[in-house]
């Protein structure tokens, strides 16, 4: 009975609604416009009762926020993926960046990796000095590496004899870069005050032999460096044309005069666009030579090395170390679209005790394939697979290889 009453009520309500529709329809018929203009006016009048401002969508707000971050303005909390030292694994980190003037930024940041590499620092950058001819970077911080690899010295060091070492390092550095003509000529000078505290290595490999120079030492360096070069790439962060020809001189002065040395880096990059930049042959040559000061030695951990995500990519980090290194890299880069390139690459390199041995004999080689996700001026993600006689390695990086 109750159900039947409900049913009737429902029917009644429906009838009322139907009647209302019919009445409304009849009313509407009476109001039917007689001209096109009247019909339009009626529709516009109807819309005028429901006006509201544009409502920004959630997606629009999110992209806006991303754009603000990418544009660099009003950045505050940001992710920070840079490791304390190469080979430390994926870094988890964050930073807080704050504009302290219209152009200058102070960034306080830190990162940590599962093997225990730590990094904490504050960096001040002033990108617009001397009427846009110069930029300045000041950095103060501390870092710790726990299991840096050492495979011995020389080009023939065995891959199965890995040792580990660690260090902590407080450091302060300043770097001034000047482009006198605001174009290609680039001059850079820097000073670093740093203290290397050697530590025993952690991890599964044994710690480095005690007879190596620098083991157990605490070395305080005043490191001066100066670079001169021509750089006509559109951006160091991403380029499909242009080149870089640069020489950098380093002078490491040990306050105890035990471990002072000099180093010269020669760096050449040349991008050769083909087929309207759909292909690029990118070539890179890098050589580092060191020179000891009188009665002083170079700590083993300061020796130039090969093996990493941007040197010999098919070898583990710090795979080869010695007084001098030579690295040759070639890439065939293929533009896939405006945001992605692929590349086939070939790396060759060697280390040597004497500069006269830096020839093309007995070079270690690898080859591989990579994807690069990039913007017009930067490469936020590079993923590569590299193969060498020592196996396959995968590289993740947030910068171009060269």
């Amino acid at each position: 009975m109750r159900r039947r009453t409900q049913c009737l009520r429902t029917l009644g309500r429906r009838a009322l609604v139907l009647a209302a529709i019919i009445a409304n329809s009849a009313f509407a018929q009476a109001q039917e416009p007689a001209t096109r203009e009247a019909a339009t006016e009626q529709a516009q009048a109807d819309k005028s009762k429901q006006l509201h401002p544009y409502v920004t969508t959630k997606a629009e707000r999110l992209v806006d926020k991303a754009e603000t971050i990418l544009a660099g303005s009003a950045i505050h909390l940001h992710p920070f993926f840079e490791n304390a030292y190469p080979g430390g694994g994926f870094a988890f980190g964050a930073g807080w960046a704050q504009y302290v003037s219209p152009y200058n930024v102070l960034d306080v940041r830190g990162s940590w990796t599962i093997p225990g590499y730590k990094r904490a620092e504050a960096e001040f950058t002033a990108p617009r000095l001397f009427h846009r001819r110069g930029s300045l970077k000041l950095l103060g911080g501390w870092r710790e590496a726990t299991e840096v690899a050492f495979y011995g010295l020389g080009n023939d060091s065995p891959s199965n004899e890995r040792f580990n070492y660690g260090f902590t390092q407080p450091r302060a550095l300043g770097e001034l870069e000047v482009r006198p003509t605001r174009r290609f000529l680039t001059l850079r000078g820097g000073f670093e005050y740093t203290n290397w505290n050697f530590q025993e290595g952690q991890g599964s490999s044994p710690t480095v032999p005690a007879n190596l120079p620098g083991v157990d030492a605490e070395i305080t360096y005043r490191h001066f460096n100066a670079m001169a070069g021509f750089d006509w790439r559109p951006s160091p962060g991403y380029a499909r044309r242009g080149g870089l020809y640069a020489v950098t001189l380093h002078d490491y002065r040990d306050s105890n005069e035990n471990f002072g040395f000099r180093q010269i880096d020669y760096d050449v990059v040349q991008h050769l666009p083909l087929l309207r930049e759909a292909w690029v042959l990118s070539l890179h040559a890098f050589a580092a030579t060191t020179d000891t000061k009188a009665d002083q030695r170079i700590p083993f951990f300061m020796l130039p090395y090969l093996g990493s995500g941007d040197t010999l990519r098919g070898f583990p980090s710090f795979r080869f170390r010695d007084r001098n290194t030579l690295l040759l890299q070639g890439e065939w880069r293929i533009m896939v679209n405006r945001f992605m390139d692929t590349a086939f690459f070939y790396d060759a390199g060697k280390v040597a005790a004497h500069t006269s041995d830096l020839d093309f004999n007995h070079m270690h080689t690898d080859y591989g394939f990579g994807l690069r996700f990039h913007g017009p001026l930067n490469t936020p993600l590079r993923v590569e697979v590299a193969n060498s006689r020592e196996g396959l390695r995968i590289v993740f990086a947030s910068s171009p290889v060269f």
Partner: protein
Amino acid sequence: MITFQPMSLAQRAALGLALTAIVVGTNIDAQKRPRFYPDDPVAREPETQDASKAQPYFIQQMYEQVYNLFVQPGYKPSGTRAQNINTIDEVPDSHWFTNRIGTRAISAEELTRGPNVGAPPDPSRWTLIREKTSGSHPGFTAQDGKGETWFLEFDPPYFPQGATGAVVASTKIFWALGYNQVETYLTTFDPKNIQIDPKATIKRPSGARTPFTKDDINAILERVARKPDGTYRAVAGRLIPGKILGNFLYAGTRPDDPNDLVPHEHHRELRALRVFGAWTNLTDIKAANTIDALTTENGRTVVKHYLQDVGSTFGMCNDLHEWDLSWEHFYQGDTTAKRLFSLGFALSPWQTVDYKEYPSVGKFEGDRWDPRTWRPQTPTTAYMELRDDDAFWAARRVVAFTDDLIRAAVHVGEYSDPEAEKYIGDVLIKRRNKIAAIYMTAINPIVSPRIDANGSLVFENAAVAAGAAKAPSGYRATWMRYDNATDQTDRLADTQSATTAMEGPRGLPTNNGAMVAIDISADSDAYPAWKKPVRAYFRRANGNWTLVGLERMPERLDAQAATKSH
């Protein structure tokens, strides 16, 4: 920009009921509303409501780019006919569009004047008041010697005269095509005659606005083309009158403008930008390059819609090395896959096309170019909705530009190299002819039908008239009585003719208010699509027949069919 949010079950149910009601209502309307009102065809879209409460809205450029590149490709064109056209398939005048070329005669003098009604800037002194707020080329906002505010834009060093020439010439072209354009003039910027307004500020990377400095001026002037005498050639755009409301979008309507009823993707003149853009190479079609402004006309405040920046034409680009510009969107799935899997061995057309090298002309050519494969930087919704009848409408306007008019428009670019000026004109002429050959022949091109005093049907074949096609072997017409109240037709007779004039049948109604419908088709082996008739509607009044309706294509097409030829 259309955005969809997930709906609740209740919302979906309500929407279903509402749609049902609309469908029912439409059927009722179909019975009671006539197809043609007495004032059809309207020549001007009425804008009857006050829009003074509209609020500024500026689209976020990155959002628009991301949406257009990665969401828009999934958009399926509706296939529906443009909705802002009148009953004779034309776009009436409005605050979006004004019928000019193709509707009436335009002289070279009128074209070269274009939107300019005021005096040009006085370059004897420039007072910088702000950075440039729109467009990608370097520039300033400045007051001239008379204190009037202008937006100044310069040429990049690699295109001396190119960017400024393209802006002024294209402004005339797009004005003639019917769009609201900013008044633009070529002018001179002499660093000796500039000053900085003490209140002038510029937005810094930190987001703060700080005083404009001499170094800010230098930073801009170092990136632009300088003349041998140390001055700079600039293009000056006059401040748009009225309150600026930001951008219009290429989809949906302004929710705060009561007169904005037709979704913008269904505006024929916005769809047609795909054709006009292809013709002039306007690659940067996006909402961020549009401006809405509140303006008061006849005592009513309405929104006027401008295409603000048409300088990305004639091959101008932001980077000399943008080889793929106009051949691909900034991102396309198909070309990405092709290059990814072929390792770049499958060449794209932009890798092999020949460009004539003039410093003042960008990558602009007409031999390999095809309007159907031309691509702007990012696709808009209106771009994707273009149908053959929209393209035909657009092509008629392009074809209305004679060689002389094209050369007159290019001449206002004041290129110092006559060969460069000639080359731009040559390319525009080549492209115009291709547009005619492709879009004017793709569908039945019969236009301007009329019934003369003798009862004969006279019309034109736009494709033949444009020299884009040979005359067909004949024309056919099916004559029908038409009842506007019931939308019913009653066949009268079939007639045919070898020409565009055809005797009418006997027995045409003679009473005032009587209507006839005529299906007109053409027999052409070369163009089978011409067999599909256009339907013309005529109303009898005062002893004359007046065209009140023209339908070139059905109301709705299969979406795939709608886009297959573009």
